[in-house]
Every structure is written in structure tokens, then in C-alpha cells.
């Protein structure tokens, strides 16, 4: 009797499980997909919102560990008639300029009606000087201390409905020749922000326009910005544009292998905090255009390689005196004199990074 009971209990449980499975599989085979053409949200108050992506966009990077390398170039410093620095400095020859670039981005709020992402970044730029005992305190300071950026950033994506959205990006960066054992006070933090109104007109196109407070040209500036992301029907070509910060044409070989052609405008204002320069409050207004090819591909699953090669074109390496870090606005048309004009020759550069990309 006990054998019957055990058999019955086992058979019953097994049948129960199998019936559920068979029933489900049978349902799958007989599925009438046209049923799902006509649906409504179960919650009558549900509103649909557009997302922050379109099809075919390159994946967002959660973690990035990179290395940037510029070939040799020269630095010429020229005193300016109205400026505060009147010395004539020797031309500096840099054999290379290179350093690590680290970035972290973590989504902290992900809802259909709001996406908030926090990030942190650290860039280090070393300068390898060829002239020994050079009479150029700025070049000597760069060679001795390098430049670095440590910053945090915030991105907010707020959709209003299925097409319209608002995008905000803000960042605070501490830029200069400081070290972590001799770090600059936070009062020298440079704040940048961009606000943009846009439309996601289809699954393959979104655009927007807005205004940015930026240091990408080296010094503080307020400039209009334009977003234009698009992908063709076959997902083989596209654009990823946030003008004037960056603009790229994308060639997609497959979703795990892409080539970009375009440029990035990169820069910030760097305080000479440790270096012995003629003015203690000197800030280098570094802005450069990087015309480049970028190849990105998945090495394994979510680990992506990004390799860049390009031409670094100097837009600005001039210097201003900012007592106590008090910023001023010159814009494109202001006539405030520079403390020092500096020009750089333009080398090739390479950049390679390993990235953990976002789902």
C-alpha cells in the first residue's frame, strides 16, 4: 500500500508539473499574435514617455579606463601688451604628452518619466619636456606637475510625453596642476552645464537644441548647442552629434562593432596651483579640437574596446590671471587682455580605453 501511495504522490506531482508545461507549450504553438494588436494599458492613468535612446546608438559606458597619448609638439609663449606677464619665454619642446583617463557613470533613478545618472571622472596629463633647464616657468611647471581634472557630473533626462524631452547635464571639475597630497581648495571648481529641449521624432531620430555654459573652448563661454542623433533603416549608418562639443558619423558593422568619424572639442581652465609661475593666479585656458577616427567593439560580452587615432588641433592654450579663482566672461567678442598668449603645434594623438557598457 505504501508503494502505491508513494507512486501516486510522485505521479500526481509530476503530472501536475507536466500538464502546466504542456499546456503552456501548446498555447505557444497555437498563439494568435493578432490578439495583441488591440490592447490598452491596464492602468487607465498610464502615460507613455519617450526614451533617451534611439536604435543603433553606441552603448553608454558605465566604467571607462583609458590612456591618452599625444606625439611631440612645441609650446610658444608670447607676452601680451595689455597682459600681466611681460617676460619672453623660451620655446618648449615636448616629446609627448600622455596620461590616464578614468570615468564612472551610474544610473541612480531609472523611471519612464525620469532618468538621473551620476558620474565621476579623473584625467591626468603628463608633459615630457625635452629642453633641460628651460627658461619657461609654465613649461617647466607642466613638466614637473602635469595637469589633472577630477570631477563629478549629473545627467537628468525628463520626458514630457512620447516625443518631447528635456535634458540637463551639469558638472563640477577641479582642474589644475595639484596632486592628491597637495590638492587645490574646492573654491577653484569649474562648473559647466547644458540644458536642452528635444524631440524624439522616431525610433531612429532625435534632435534638440539648447544652451551650454562651458569651458570646452578653454575659458568660460555660453554657447548654443544642437543635438542630432540618427540611424538609417538598415542600422548601418548614423550620426551622433552634440554640436559644438562633438559630432560623429557612425558606421555600424554590427551592434558590437562600430567606426566613428568626426571630432570632439575638449578643454577646461587649469589653475597653476603648485607650479612656480610669474603670477600665482594664472590659469591655462586649454581648448583643443580632436579630429578623429574611433573604432569601438565588444571584446567579450559587455567589455568594449575603444581605440582612437586623430589630429589634435590647438584652439587655445592661453593664460589668464584669476585672483582667488574669480571667473570672468570674455566670450568670443570680449576685449579683456590675456595674461599670456601661448600657441601649440599640432600632433597626432592616440587614445585607447576598456569600457564596461550599460544594458
Amino acid at each position, binding site marked *: *500500500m505504501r508503494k*502505491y*501511495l508513494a*507512486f*501516486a*504522490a510522485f*505521479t*500526481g*506531482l509530476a*503530472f*501536475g*508539473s507536466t*500538464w*502546466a*508545461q504542456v499546456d*503552456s*507549450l501548446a*498555447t*505557444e504553438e497555437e*498563439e494568435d*499574435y493578432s*490578439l*495583441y*494588436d*488591440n*490592447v*490598452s*494599458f*491596464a*492602468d487607465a492613468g*498610464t502615460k*507613455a*514617455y519617450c*526614451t533617451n*535612446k534611439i*536604435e543603433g546608438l553606441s*552603448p553608454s559606458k*558605465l*566604467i571607462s579606463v583609458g590612456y591618452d597619448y599625444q606625439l611631440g609638439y612645441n609650446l610658444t609663449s608670447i607676452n601680451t601688451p595689455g597682459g600681466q606677464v611681460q617676460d619672453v619665454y623660451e620655446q618648449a619642446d615636448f616629446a609627448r604628452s600622455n596620461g590616464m583617463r578614468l570615468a564612472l557613470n*551610474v*544610473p541612480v533613478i*531609472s*523611471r*519612464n518619466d525620469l532618468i538621473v545618472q551620476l558620474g565621476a571622472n579623473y584625467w591626468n596629463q603628463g608633459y615630457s619636456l625635452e629642453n633641460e633647464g628651460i627658461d619657461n616657468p609654465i613649461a617647466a611647471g607642466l613638466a614637473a606637475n602635469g595637469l589633472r581634472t577630477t570631477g563629478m557630473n549629473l545627467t537628468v533626462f525628463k520626458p514630457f510625453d*512620447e516625443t518631447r524631452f528635456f535634458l540637463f547635464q551639469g558638472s563640477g571639475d577641479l582642474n589644475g596642476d595639484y596632486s592628491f597630497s597637495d590638492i587645490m581648495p574646492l573654491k577653484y571648481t569649474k562648473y559647466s552645464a547644458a540644458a536642452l529641449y528635444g524631440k524624439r521624432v522616431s*525610433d531612429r531620430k532625435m534632435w534638440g537644441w539648447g544652451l551650454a555654459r562651458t569651458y570646452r573652448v578653454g575659458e568660460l563661454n555660453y554657447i548654443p548647442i544642437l543635438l542630432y542623433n540618427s540611424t538609417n*533603416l*538598415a542600422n548601418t549608418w548614423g550620426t551622433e552629434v552634440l554640436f559644438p562639443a562633438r559630432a560623429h558619423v557612425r558606421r555600424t558593422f*554590427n*551592434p*558590437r562593432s562600430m567606426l566613428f568619424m568626426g571630432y570632439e572639442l575638449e578643454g577646461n581652465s587649469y589653475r597653476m596651483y603648485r607650479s612656480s609661475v610669474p603670477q600665482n593666479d594664472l590659469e591655462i585656458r586649454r581648448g583643443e579640437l580632436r579630429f578623429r577616427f574611433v573604432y569601438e567593439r565588444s571584446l567579450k*560580452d*559587455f567589455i568594449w574596446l575603444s581605440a582612437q587615432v586623430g589630429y589634435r588641433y590647438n584652439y587655445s592654450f592661453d593664460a589668464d590671471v584669476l585672483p582667488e579663482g574669480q571667473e570672468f566672461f570674455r566670450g568670443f567678442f570680449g576685449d579683456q587682455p590675456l595674461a599670456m598668449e601661448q600657441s601649440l603645434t599640432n600632433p597626432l594623438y592616440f587614445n585607447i580605453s576598456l569600457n*564596461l557598457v*550599460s*544594458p
Partner: protein
Amino acid sequence: MKNVLIALCLVLSGSLFSSFIQQGTDGDRLLGVWEPSNGRARVKVEKIGSKYFGKIVWLKEPIDPETNLPKVDKNNPDPALQSVPLKGYRMLKDFTYAGNNQWTGGTIYDPLNGSTYNCTINMRDNNTLDIRGYIGVSAFGRTDVWKRLQVQRN
């Protein structure tokens, strides 16, 4: 004969009991049709055995504009699966109900890039799911909000 009848009764009652247990759990609240935030697909969650699976039952663009044929899983890294139709594809797999409105232990597949992610489902309310796809640890992920759909029967 009497013993055989008793055994049959036990088989039926065991089966009914098992079925009752499976259908009556809190976990079954996940069953139904859901729409991801991008609105490009509708996903029907079913239960197979004790686990929950979600298959694509509707696509906003069912036809591949390149081939003019129904879309297939062309971005799958496994070439053998690249001709599998997307409609009917199980993009949610192997979820079990962990209690406290959470389904865990499963994966989510993104047909747009052919990647499979670890996934946790949290039911915010009966009609809203927080679907968190992540890589290794939950911090490295993204949450998408899915809404329950009602199928309009004709």
C-alpha cells in the same frame, strides 16, 4: 481493484493539489502581457513548470525594412539563432518568485544588440514592473519600467 482506485484518486488529487499550488502563488501575478518603456514590443509572461518566461508577442515594426520579411534575431551572437523569428522569442527566461514582489534568477535578452543580462523583476504595483538588467552586480545596470496591458477581446 480497490487499491488501484485509491491510487487513481491519489493521482488525481495530487495533480489537482500541485496545479492549485502552482497557479495560486503570489508569483503568478507576473502572468500577463506587458509593454517596455520604449513601446517597441509587447511581452507575454507565462509560467512553465515553476519558472516564469516572457516572450515577444507583438512588435511595433514586425517587418525588417532591409529584407521586407518578418524580423528575425539577426543580432544574436550565435549564428545558428540568427534566423529565429523575433515574434515568439523568449526574451525573459528562468525567473522564480522570491517573495516580496520580486522575481529573481532570470535573464533578459535585448534583440537590438544581441546581449543577455542578469535581471531582477520588481512589481511596484499590480500594473507596473521595474525590470533591472545588470552586469554581474545590480549597481551596473539599468531599470526599465514595464506597464501591464489588457488585451481587448473581440
